[in-house]
């Protein structure tokens, strides 16, 4: 049996025996015959994967025309992407180029399965200086050559329904968390008088693991707590993080400004749907504009995420993680040159303008910002957030596990709150400490 087959069988073993089920993948990389073809796994940025494919195909067509290299595109939903990458890493059979959530960059870097962006490879895509530096910094652990480069830049903002604000007599978006909760209470009302609340102050995706983890990170920092201590050990149960997570869960448990039904909501895109349906007045999201546009909803504006105090700076002034999507080249690619060339194409100034405008995201190369498409208030707001009020998620290899464990802990807390159980500070603390201890036993 040759090595390749042996590795493939082993990938099967990981799936079948270790998990009892398997998320298989078998993408052929590389070229065959005269026609060069590379495979590309894209993440889901648009309201539907079909729309993603449409947008990307246009860019790919330009690339194929220019170079003659064909690109076999697959858009993978977020719920599957991580597993697909893992299976690809373990089997050594994967795409040539792939998108990753930038918070996974360090975890995936440590697997050694991706081409480091240094020397010629980095030169080929125009060097580090072309990129927005805060985004570029998410590409890998500090002091190591990154194994991913930014593709789309994102940051959290507060989206609010302007008509509802006006009706409630609120003139300005909330700047502090206290004001935010106060406004949310004003906006939580029974509009048709049937005794049931049908307009909620805030909507959230309570079962979305990654959204929950992002909130733990941002709210934790605002309250002076970091998810990892100075030695890089997980420290989820510290006072700051507990206070931050409690604030988040309290929106549903204590302030009652979030519908309990939201605890079941798995996808971040559910929030935009609820918001556009007029069932909620505010939500935090990274790039919902395309989604809202597809629902013909325009009565909204964006504002910075509220902080504990309006003038907070430094870590306590964090409003978002440096969010975004990065792009990597698979080390086992049969045609690394073509793969790197394709990354160069996607990160070129023109494609950056096209792609980020299509997806409502921020370009990751500074030159693209001159384009009129990125002069809107909302984009400027995100630029300011990324420049002054964003921190990268912890750049440790275990970041991926951290997101899962913390996100799941918060999901369970929200589930308790949704069922009318009270969630005390001790409950939050013990849930987070449990998560931390599970993480250390896995190392």
């Amino acid at each position, binding site marked *: 049996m040759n090595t390749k087959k042996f590795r493939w*069988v*082993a990938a*099967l*073993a*990981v799936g*079948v*025996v*270790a*998990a*009892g*089920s398997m*998320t298989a993948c078998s993408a052929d990389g590389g070229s065959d015959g005269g026609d060069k073809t590379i495979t590309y796994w894209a993440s889901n940025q648009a309201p539907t994967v079909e729309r993603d494919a449409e947008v990307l195909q246009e860019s790919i067509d330009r690339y194929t025309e220019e170079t003659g290299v064909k690109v076999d595109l697959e858009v993978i939903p977020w*719920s599957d992407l*991580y*597993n697909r990458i*893992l299976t690809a*890493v*373990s089997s*050594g059979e994967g795409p040539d180029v792939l998108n990753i959530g930038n918070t996974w960059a360090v*975890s*995936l870097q*440590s*697997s*050694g*399965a991706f081409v480091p962006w240094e020397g010629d490879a980095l030169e080929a895509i125009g060097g580090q200086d072309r990129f927005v530096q805060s985004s570029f910094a998410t590409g890998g652990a500090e002091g190591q050559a990154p194994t991913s480069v930014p593709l789309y830049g994102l940051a959290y903002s507060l989206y609010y329904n302007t008509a509802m604000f006006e009706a409630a007599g609120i003139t300005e978006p909330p700047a502090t968390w206290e004001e935010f909760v106060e406004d949310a209470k004003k906006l939580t009302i029974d509009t048709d008088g049937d005794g049931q609340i049908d307009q909620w102050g805030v909507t959230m995706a309570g*079962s979305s*693991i990654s959204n929950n983890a992002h909130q733990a990170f941002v709210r934790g920092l605002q309250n002076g707590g970091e998810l990892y201590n100075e030695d890089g050990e997980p420290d989820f149960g510290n006072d700051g993080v507990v206070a931050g997570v409690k604030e988040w869960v309290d929106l549903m448990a204590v302030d009652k400004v979030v*519908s*309990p*039904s939201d*605890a*079941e909501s*798995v996808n971040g895109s559910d929030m935009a749907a609820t918001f556009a349906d007029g069932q909620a007045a505010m939500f935090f999201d990274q790039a919902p504009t395309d989604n809202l546009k597809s629902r013909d909803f325009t009565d909204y504006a964006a504002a910075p995420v509220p902080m504990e105090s309006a003038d907070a700076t430094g870590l306590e002034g964090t409003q978002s993680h440096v969010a975004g999507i990065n792009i990597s080249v698979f*080390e086992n690619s049969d045609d690394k040159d073509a793969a790197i060339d394709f990354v160069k194409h996607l990160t070129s100034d023109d494609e950056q303008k096209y792609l980020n405008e299509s997806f409502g995201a921020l370009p990751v190369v500074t030159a693209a910002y001159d384009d009129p498409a990125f002069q809107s208030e909302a984009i400027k707001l995100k630029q300011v957030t990324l420049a002054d009020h964003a921190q990268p998620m912890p750049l440790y*290899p275990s970041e*991926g*596990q951290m997101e*899962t*464990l913390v996100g*799941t802990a918060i*999901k*369970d807390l929200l*589930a*308790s709150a*949704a*069922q009318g159980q009270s969630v005390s500070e001790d409950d939050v603390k013990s849930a987070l400490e*449990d998560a931390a*201890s*599970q*993480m250390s*036993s*896995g*190392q």
Partner: protein
Amino acid sequence: MTVNLLPPAPAEEATPPDRHQAAPLQPAQKRKAHRSPLAYFLVAPAALAELLVHIIPMVLGVWIAFITLNQLSIANWVNAPFVGLRNFVTALDPSSPIAGQLYGALGRTLLFTVIVVAIAWSMGMLGAVLLTSSFKGRGILRTLFLVPYALPSYVGTIAWAFMFNQRDGAINRFLVDDLGILQDRPFWLLGGNSFWAIVIVTAWQFWPFAFLMLLAALQNIPGDVYEAASLDGASLWKQFTQITLPMVKPANAVLLLIMSLWIFNQFNVPYVLFGPASPEQATLISPLIYQQSFNNWNFGLGGAMSVMLLIVLLIASAFYIRMVLPKGQHDD
């Protein structure tokens, strides 16, 4: 004399099985002498497939349980560090939250299996008994009953996930809006009810299998046995307990074993209903292994849990086969 004459008769009767056994032996021995390379050649593809599909993955799975396999070692997993029994210790150490989850999931899965097998078996038996007697429309009903089993597991479960939705699922609409039995809309996919959600969906999925197996078994019971029983004045219930149940016992024994093993390993239903992380009250053992392996990137630990699960199921199955399954002489 008669007393002396009688014993040889049973002895005579006992010989046929021996002859039966002896008869096939001779050609077998002949064949042994003439065994050609062609035989090996013909068996080779099947043996190779078995090796590739079953044996090697299983051996690798067991091996994974003894190494540290996470994101650091997965790309080069052949050289992943060997840690002996550490993964097993982590999974079993009562002071760790992981072991707490494992013990909880084991107990819950046992309870889940018992309840689901009981429901699926009862419904299958009821359906089979009702559809044994012929009446108009029996064919249609038989087909209809098989739908949940014929439907791909994911499709059926996704439909249930929509129905269980708290805000606007069909079940809450029916219970709260239409019937008014409940005041508040309960959550079916969160908290305690989530356990019953997987019980309902799994039982729904498996009862047609029980129905099918039992129907086949029931049709092997000669009708005159029932006729004789009714002539003797046996009630329907008596006929069921005294004739039907004993007559389908061999089929039942196998059916219960297979269903229990499948249901104990249930993965699809919780995964589709809850996504990668099940609510604590509904975490079964297979999804827990998945969570440890794929969500937490801890394949070694997941592997250790799998191996322990395998051992538990092997012991239980071996015990069951010895105790319950029909003995060897009925095998042929």
